Structures are given as structure tokens and as C-alpha cells.
């Protein structure tokens, strides 16, 4: 169809009216009472933000956290950026779900055969920053037999709240959300530079959790059509200097 000009359309209007089958309704006011915003107000101004940057802004705030070794780190830049990560929430005095999930993740860590701390990083963040000191977290990790490359983190309560909400570990219902013992058992599994985020269930069978983590982390690197390895540059681990997991040494790859 040829390009339409305003004039052409006005000339054709009568015909078109019939053609769209809308005749007889024109000028009805009752319906237009519902109309709200003129089209002109819909001139949205959209930004050109990369999806990765959007996820960073909304879900991965760069809040300051404190490790079980009393070291200051920044969540995004030090812990998540360019990394494969596994994130969950717990608190040291939790009697119900946390020990189960921690126990499962310890088993998962074993099943991942030394990858934790090398190219996959585990983070457990406290839900009770008011009471969990780094020392409490370290004791918790020790008690549960946590291996190297797995950090336990606390921070300012407001920052932890922001982090918890940003990562989806919250309930819309405030009463439900306030019940710490009912906290989310989710485990976030992500590969930050690839914008690949999944959740698995901390209460699930550890072998299955390990399978999910492995496939989440490795599936994007299967195959080489159109040079996927070039297109998806390394999600190689950047192990920050002087950073330790809850266990002894960090295994630094390369």
C-alpha cells in the first residue's frame, strides 16, 4: 500500500468508517467519559539501558557488607559482578529451615567438587543483621562444616533489607514477611554477566540442587555455533584479592 498522507486519509474517511464497521458509534460521549490520557501525554521517554545494567540497578545493589572474617565488601562489585553465584538467606539462631538448607548446601558444595570458591561462589546473607555478628556467622559456618569459598555476610539492617527485597527474598504480605521462621527457602543461582538467574529450593534434594547449579552455570557454554565462547566472554572467575571464604584458603583459578 502506498504511503498515506493526511489528506488522502481525510478524503477516504467516509469509506474507511464503513470499512472498519464502526459507523453509528461515532461521537458517542458515554464511552469517551472513560478515556483518560490524550495520546500526546504518552510520549514516553525511554532510556537506552542495557538489560544487564537494569538488573544490576534493581536487583543487585552495591551495598556494603561485612564478611564472617570482619572484612568489608561491596555486594555487586566485589561479590556478584562477572561471577557465577549462589545466594541464600539465613540467620544464626534459626532453628527450623536454615540448618536444613545449610546442611543441603554443604552437601552441594561437596558435590561440586572444589568449584566453590574457584568459579562458583556461595553467599549466605543474614536475615538478622541486628543480632548476627561476623563472629556468630563464622561459628555458624564452622558448626555446619562449611567448606572454603563460601561467605557469610551481614551488614547494616537497611542495606540487608534492601538486598533481601531486591533479590526477591520477601513476601508481599507484611505480616508474613515479618515472620523470620517462615523466610524464603529459595536459593538464587545466577551468572551475572549473562543475565541468567534461576532459583532452586534449598529444601530440595542436594544432588538435584547440584545438578541445577551445574546446568545453570555450564549450559550457556555448550556448543560453539557462531562462536559462543567469543560472544559470551568468560564468566571466568575474578577472585578478589584478599578475599576469603568461610573455610581456609580461596582456591584461585588461574
Amino acid at each position, binding site marked *: *500500500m502506498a*504511503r*498515506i498522507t*493526511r489528506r488522502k*486519509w*481525510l478524503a477516504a*474517511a*467516509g469509506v474507511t*468508517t464503513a470499512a*472498519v*464497521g*464502526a*459507523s*453509528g*458509534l*461515532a*461521537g*458517542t460521549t458515554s464511552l*469517551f467519559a*472513560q*478515556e483518560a*490520557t490524550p*495520546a500526546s501525554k*504518552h510520549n*514516553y521517554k525511554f532510556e*537506552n*539501558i542495557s*538489560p544487564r545494567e*537494569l538488573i544490576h540497578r*534493581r*536487583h543487585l545493589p552495591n551495598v556494603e557488607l561485612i564478611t564472617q572474617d570482619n572484612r568489608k565488601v561491596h555486594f555487586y562489585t566485589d561479590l556478584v559482578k562477572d561471577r557465577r553465584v549462589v545466594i541464600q538467606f539465613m540467620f544464626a539462631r534459626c532453628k527450623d*529451615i536454615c540448618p536444613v538448607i545449610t546442611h543441603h548446601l554443604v552437601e552441594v558444595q561437596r558435590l561440586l567438587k572444589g568449584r566453590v570458591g574457584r568459579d562458583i561462589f556461595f553467599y549466605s546473607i543474614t536475615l538478622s543483621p541486628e543480632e548476627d555478628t561476623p563472629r556468630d556467622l563464622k561459628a555458624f559456618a564452622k558448626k555446619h562444616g562449611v567448606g572454603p569459598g563460601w561467605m557469610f555476610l551481614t551488614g547494616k539492617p537497611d542495606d540487608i533489607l534492601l538486598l533481601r527485597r531486591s533479590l*526477591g527474598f520477601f513476601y*508481599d*504480605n507484611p505480616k508474613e514477611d515479618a515472620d523470620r521462621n517462615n523466610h*524464603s*527457602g529459595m536459593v*538464587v543461582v545466577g551468572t551475572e554477566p*549473562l*543475565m541468567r*538467574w*534461576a*532459583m*532452586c529450593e534449598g*529444601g*530440595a*534434594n542436594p*544432588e*538435584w540442587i547440584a*545438578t541445577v547449579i551445574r*546446568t*545453570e552455570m555450564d*549450559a*550457556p557454554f*555448550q*556448543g*560453539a*555455533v557462531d562462536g559462543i565462547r567469543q*560472544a*559470551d566472554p568468560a564468566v571466568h572467575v575474578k577472585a578478589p584479592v584478599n578475599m576469603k571464604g568461610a573455610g581456609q584458603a580461596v582456591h584461585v583459578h588461574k
Partner: protein
Amino acid sequence: MAHFSKRNRRRERETQQALNNRLELVKEGFTRRDLIKMGLMTSAGVLIPKVGLTHAQTTASFSRGCYSGCDVGCSPQPAQVFVDPMPIPPELPARSVLTDPGLNFGARPQICPNNAPNPNNGNLPFEGRGQFNGLVVPGSDCFQFFNQYPTQKYFVQRIRANPNFRITSDPNIPAQLIWGFNLGASDPSDVGTFPGPTIRTNYQEPWLIRRFNELPTQSQNGGFGVPEMSTHLHNFHTAPESDGGPCRWFFRGQYFDYYFTAQQAGFSIPVNQGGFAPNGDPRESLSTMWYHDHRIDHTAENTYKGLEGFHLIFNGSDTGNETTGFRLPSYPAFDIPIILNDKLIDPSTGKICFDTFRFKGLIGDVQLANGIVQPFFNVNKRRYRFRVLNGGPSRFYQLFLTDPLSPSTVIPFWVIANDGNLLPTPIQVTSFRLGVAERYDIIIDFNQVKSLIGSHTAVRLENRLRQDDGQGPTCEIFPAGQGTSCVEFRIGAAVADGSVDPATHPVFYQLPTVVTPRITRNFIFDRSNGQWVINDRFANCNELRFTVTQNSAENWVLINPRSDWQHPIHIHLEEHQILSRVNNSGRYPSRDSSFSRRGDCPFGGGGGGISTTRPGVPNVEVSRKDVTQLQFDENATLFFRFRDFQGDWPMHCHNTVHEDHAMMLLFQVQPGVIDNNQNP
């Protein structure tokens, strides 16, 4: 673009043209006033209220504001609705196995997977069939019954991205990146579309579809979606190797052959053993199906990205020709598929967004029908068959016909099929309730509609069920005209109508006989620490929870102990019948946490009544089904037969967010195994 029929090509062109025309109009500086003067914007051009869906929840979820940027009440809206025509997806062309390059890539379709390494794809096997959790399981997933029912029809689809997809002609809303199924050509211009091309097949004509995963790399996903594919045909009677289940996904650069015997259930059981060899029980015929991605943990984002399409199957009764068989309105002229989806648009970028960090369920505030924001559709004054599918991810719909100029006018229509299963006879209703993945085939007689609305010329398919979040619907039905209209039907001239009048009570298939089950099993669909469980356990591809004896009958009691969540539960392999829908009332203690009691308000049948023989079951659900909504505090007893195939299939919530987190189990069917676990 290659190989689609003349009709579809024309339709595509028309649709595209209409979109272009509107873009031109806007570019040329037409104001709304101009358009109204021209009569171009009448009832059709009612402007959308400021915050999108009429009466949709207009505030973002609890105390989040538009904090995440991707939430209900935050989406930029097209300036006008009912200005774009509803597109009809093109039909997928059949291909020649002898000459088509796709069907000769690697190797022609063969009974066992082509696990030969492809040196051009990192030595991954050419074919993804035979992989489980992404790992090759040697010797697995050969096609069952492949030689008994030789393939008669071949198709190819390439799963591709399309960065230029428009959901509205409004130039203020930018083009979207979608992932979709294409028409099978290798030419780059044959991009993925949403909805995918409609696949049309016939019973007793076995078919095979080779799907290529040609998606871009993970980092090109635009923020959500994982490029690992498993395409489920919902809900054909299909062996696991071709079913497209959650654990059988394949990688980029691989293909996957899906083979279908095209026989109704019961085809392998000899007649003298109560079976229907060799072609199956005609009463088990399906009609309206759909295909969609089913990758475990990522189904919600992948289907949200556009990986959904219709698959229609016909037979000697449901012929697609209104002069033969059941004389249902002729396909494709008067037999129209409509997929409904609600989306969120990111206010920062104008792009469709999906929050991968939320897991209660996701509802949108931009309503699509066949991929277009609230379109119109021109109809003639005669009967039409509409196949209405809820494409998810989480919303429930209760759909009415509304005259926008006289909302109080009650407009009845006919339900003829539930989940693609023709009812014994049509049932007149004024509304129906549609959970995710459910399909209702309805007949609207626009001649009768016209007589009800007098001089008015349009009616709308209106969703009047209020739903504020992903938990499930509320108990509230909006007043007529105050819900969200999904499509506007504009009624034109009368044309010849050779289709059967549902008011004459034509008879379709009788229901298959219900027999005494070998066992009754109970399944509690519950919430646990914010995640989703069936009988207290999570989805796990490595765990087959129980075994059904092949060719036996079972009753499954699906239980929702919560009065604040609802779940549309889907079971693969076989259609079921709902024997009862009962309030738990003490039998299963309510686990309502008293956080937000919503009460007991089951779907009342939409004017079609409740069964006199099946307690609590609306007449429109006295049918075969493959998705059963679990309403508040309710248990539903389902009757099944498990026939013909061996292997594993899932049962899961089809609120795809709940499904991904992780309300799913796998069961298996094996001959001669007796598993008497009643609470597996």
C-alpha cells in the same frame, strides 16, 4: 519468508498493512480529534485509562511502588486500544523429507536419536533427543510405535529471536525482542513469531516436527530467557521422548525430532481387551492444543518471551468444514484461535520485562490477544468458533461478551469444548473461567448477538475477574463494562452460514466410561517457605515419584489446603475427567495462614449450571480435561486411564512461576509394576 499459504500470506500482509497505516497516521500528525471526526475512533477508539488495564490493580504490589520497575501499574500504555487488528498466526507449512534441507541436516529423522557429534557445534550431538538434564543418556528416547505408524507429514520449525516485534502500532511503545517459532525456513528473514505459526494436523496421519534451537547466546537474552528449549505439545497423547517435558531440553545449534503417532488414546490395546487398536478411542479426540517451551526452572520466562503457539488437530467428525462431520464453523475462515497473555512493560525502556527474582506469580497490566494489545477483529453476522487459550503466565480470566454501549445487556454464547475436548453437547453460558493453559472452544452466533445489541455493532470479550497478584483471582467479578476487554468483535455483513446451530443440541463425543480405579492417590499442592510443593516435595528431574501400572485406571485427588492461593494443575499424557469438586471442609485441614483469607468462591458454571451427577463440577467441566483449576480450599477428584506409552511425565502447576519454583513432580507408567503409594 517461505511456504505459507496464499490465505495466510494475504492475512499477514493485511495485518502488517493495518499496523503500518496507523503508524503513518500518527506520523502524519493526526490528532485524536481528527480521527474521531473521521469516525475512525469510535467505540473502537476508546482510549485506554491512564494506568492501563481497566480496573486492573492500579497500584504496584505492596509497598514496592515501581521500585523494581517491572510491576503492575507501572507499564507504559499504548495511547489507544482496539485500533489494531487481531492477527491470525500463519499456518506451519508441511515439508518434504526428501528435499527439505532442515530434515536432511545431520541425518533424516530416525527412530533413535542422532547422537553423532556435530563438529561445528562443539561436538554436541546433532540431535538433542536422548539428553536428560542436558546430558546424553545412551540408548534412551527412541520413538515408541515409530514403525507401526509411519510418518505421513513432516514439519520444521526454527526457534529464533525477533528483535522487531510490535505489540501495538503506537509508535510510543518500541519494538520488542521476542523469541518465537518460525515457519521452518532457514532464510534469516523467517524470524520467530508470537504466537507461533499454527500447526494443523489430522488424526491417523502421523507427523514429525524437527525443531532447531537457533536462539542467540545467553548474553543476548535481553534480560530474561534461557536459550535451552523443550517444546511440549499440550496435551497430545504423546510418549515422553516427543512430549517436550521439563527435563528433555536441547541446546543451541541442536535439533530435536518430535514424533506423534496421531492416534487417539487406547490405540495399542486390543479390542477384545477393552481397547481400541489400532486407531484409539474416538471419544478421546482432542481439537485445540498448543505448543510451548517447558524448560525446567525457566518455563515462565521462556514462554513469556513468546514461545507459544496453537496446534489444531482434526478428524472425520471435527473436520474443519462446516458442511461435514459435526458441522462446526469452517477452519480457517470462521474458526479463530485466540491466545490471551498479560504482560508488563518496563517504564524505563519500554520493553516487555520479566522479573526473574519474584516467585509468587506474575500478572501484567498490558493485555494481549494474539500478541497485540487489545485488538479488534472484524466478523460477519454468522456463527464463529473461537478457540480461547490462556497463555499465562499467572492470570485467571472470567470472560464475558459485553456491548460497550450497553454493558447491562446479557449476551449468551455456547461452550463446545474444554481443554480442546469437545463436550458431549454444547452448553449455553454467559461466561467461562479460564486458568492458565486451559482452552475453551466457544461458538458465538453474531447474528443473535446483533439482535441483542440492536443498532450497536461491536461486542467485546471482557475479562471481569479481578486479580491483584500472582496468588490467584479474588472473589470479585467487576460490573459489566468495567473489566478488561481483550478483543473487540466488530460485526459486519451477514454471510452464508452452513454450521450447526448449537441450540439444536448436536451430539459430539460421549465421555469415555468411568470405571472403578485400581488405586486412589492424594496430592497436596501447598506452599512451603515461599516455594511450592506437591506432597511436601519439590520438582526434581532425577526423581520419579511413583509408578502407574500401564493400561490401568486411577483416581487422583488434588488438594489445595490454602484459602489464599489457586493453582491450575496440568497432567501430561492423558486427558482426565473431574469426578467431583469439593470444599475441603475438615477433610483436609486448611493451612490458611490467616494472612489473607479470600474465602470460598468457586466458579459457579458461568450460567451453564452445575452437574447433577458430579458434585460441584460445573457442566462445562463435565468433559475431558488436562488442566484442573484448584480453587480456594478445594479438592478435586480426577479419573484417569494411562495407556499405550511407557516412560515418565510430569504433573505440575501451570501458573508457570509456581511451576518453576517448583510445583511439579514426575510419575512414570510401566507395565506390570504395582505401586500402591497413596500419597506419593
